[in-house]
């Protein structure tokens, strides 16, 4: 796989907004038929990175290659033309418009000539219904407003739209964050299917449990820079989680939680157990008092 030309490659990409360094020195490769999970906490730079990938704003510095060729996007339309489809968190769906109108928004099929050129509604309705059926959502009526669909279904319309229009790279921005367990699994299954169809998928999330089953590799972002890319074989779910949240923060949280438990047990007079993690340092009496007060 490493001998292939990556579908998407970023080399030392920086993005600055005035004096704010949103991204610094990001390098990443994604191949066709591969799911790359972009993980990071809030404010890590995930959104800026995908906006750079999808042509919303060009990088301040660094190289960005699509299929081995340098990409110079100035608008989302350029990225679309290059086969990079992004499903944004807000889905680019308009609730009051019909499923068909949304599905073909910006790329409506037409018949007729000159001033009589019109949208081919028959064809459009049929395709919208077929594409939805392929992903296991049977649409009762393609003219119903998208607002009548559930969140997971809307997500699937957005993804199906991107795939239908020949996306080679699919960027999904937090596709499962607002979904219930069952709906999230529908979306995850669809991501796996897109990979099987040979698409390069970049899946942005902060939910490791959603990312881990479908991912081939993880790139971790923290405060605008990359902590590195890891193949799935190399890391466990816990390690990913640890790196993402920042091991130190989690450990100190562990220590604090252990402290709660201990004071709890002390007040009940039960025997004290050694359970604090090795990284836990003895908290000062002052922080204990604060914690007790807050508790």
């Amino acid at each position, binding site marked *: 796989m490493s001998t292939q030309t990556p579908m998407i490659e970023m080399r030392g990409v920086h993005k600055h907004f005035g004096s704010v360094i949103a991204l610094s020195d990001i390098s990443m490769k994604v191949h066709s038929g591969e799911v790359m999970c972009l993980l990071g906490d809030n404010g890590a730079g995930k959104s800026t990175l995908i906006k750079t990938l999808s042509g919303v704003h060009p990088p301040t510095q660094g190289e960005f290659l699509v299929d081995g060729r340098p990409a110079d996007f100035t608008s989302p339309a350029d990225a679309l033309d290059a086969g990079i489809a992004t499903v944004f968190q*807000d889905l*680019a769906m308009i609730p009051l418009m019909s499923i068909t109108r949304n599905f073909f*928004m*910006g790329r409506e099929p037409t018949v007729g000539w000159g001033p009589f050129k019109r949208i081919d509604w028959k064809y459009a309705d049929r395709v919208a219904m077929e594409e939805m059926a392929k992903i296991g959502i049977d649409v009762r009526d393609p003219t119903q*407003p998208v607002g009548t669909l559930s969140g997971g279904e809307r997500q699937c319309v957005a993804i199906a739209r991107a795939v239908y229009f020949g996306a080679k790279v699919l960027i999904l921005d937090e596709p499962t964050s607002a979904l219930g367990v069952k709906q999230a699994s529908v979306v995850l299954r669809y991501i796996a299917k897109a990979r099987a169809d040979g698409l390069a998928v970049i899946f942005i999330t902060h939910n490791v449990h959603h990312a881990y089953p479908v991912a081939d590799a993880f790139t971790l972002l923290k405060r605008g820079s990359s902590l590195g890319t890891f193949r799935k074989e190399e890391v466990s779910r816990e390690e990913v989680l640890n790196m993402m949240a920042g091991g130190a923060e989690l450990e100190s949280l562990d220590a604090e939680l252990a402290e709660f438990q201990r004071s709890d047990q002390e007040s009940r007079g039960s025997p004290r157990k050694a359970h604090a993690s090795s990284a836990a340092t003895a908290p000062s009496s002052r922080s204990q008092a604060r914690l007790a007060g807050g508790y």
Partner: protein
Amino acid sequence: MTATSAKQMSDDERLKKASPLKKALSRPEFGAVAGAILVIAFFSVVAAGTGMFTARGMINFLEVSAQLGIIAVAAALLMIGGEFDLSIGSMIGFAGILIAIPAVQYGWPLWAALLFAFASALLVGAINGWLVVRTGLPSFIVTLGFLFILRGLAIGLPRLFTGRTQIGGIHETMAGDWLAPLFSGVVGASLFQWLAEVGLLATNFAGNPVVSGIPVAVVWWVGLTALATWVLLGTRFGNWIFACGGDKNAARNVGVPVNLVKITLFMFTAFCATVYAALQVMDTGSADSMRGMLKELEAIIAVVIGGALLTGGYGSAIGASFGALIFGVVQMGIFYTGVNTDWFQVFLGAMLLVAVLFNNFVRKKALEAH
């Protein structure tokens, strides 16, 4: 597989056979069509025998409706596209002056003056649109600015060039002009003559039919409504209008040229305001700085009665047209029934509120259950 699944879905057991009534109810223009039927029924009882529903009377209220309808259709497209144009009314006055000054003061042929006015109006529309998409300011503010700028120009320019704010003498310039018939006179005169001859239409003392034909304004109204409806429902551009008004970022992200759509819509409202101005100038034979006052608000009322959502993304041109019809029927109905015309505005305001409440209700229904 796809063929069979499509077939299965087309007779999906969960798809209740929606009655035609329910389907009609979920159309944005339903309220306006029902309202128009209601007011016509109301006045045909209340104003029976007053001459409102004679051929002459009907042409009267159709002409009033047509004038408003011409600008309401454009305002509807713009509002569906997510923007307002408060400068429509001032544009009417301004465009009228731009026709009259060259034609009367400088002796241009009328067609040249008309083309000049249309070109200027399209430019103003483009500037309006360009400012809105460039600055990101609400169009309410930008066009409010132009409401005053254009009104000021409509007063200042004729004073500067002619010393007056009213310019007459248009009728004299109309004779033999090739472009003038597009904005003046009637259509189907021979048909109406024939109707009168076979006794289907009343004649006046001179033996001419009481109605000489369909006023050209009505033809413009119907034509523009048909065009706008075709664009909205049938074309790519129409889909883009809905998309821009629904969510301009979403539209942009899927490649809709949002700025182009919006600027085009602002140019279209300016165009329609100029059509209104041309019709009025040639009908009355004069241009006046104060023409078109408050027409922008009347247009917005017609559009909202027609079922459009103030925030954009939803509405219909047919609805706006029927909104204008309601307007015309009520205005003339009040005149014919002899009710003090002061009450017209009370009715108008109440109508607006009822329409908005009703349309909100319909839209909610459309989104929750289908």
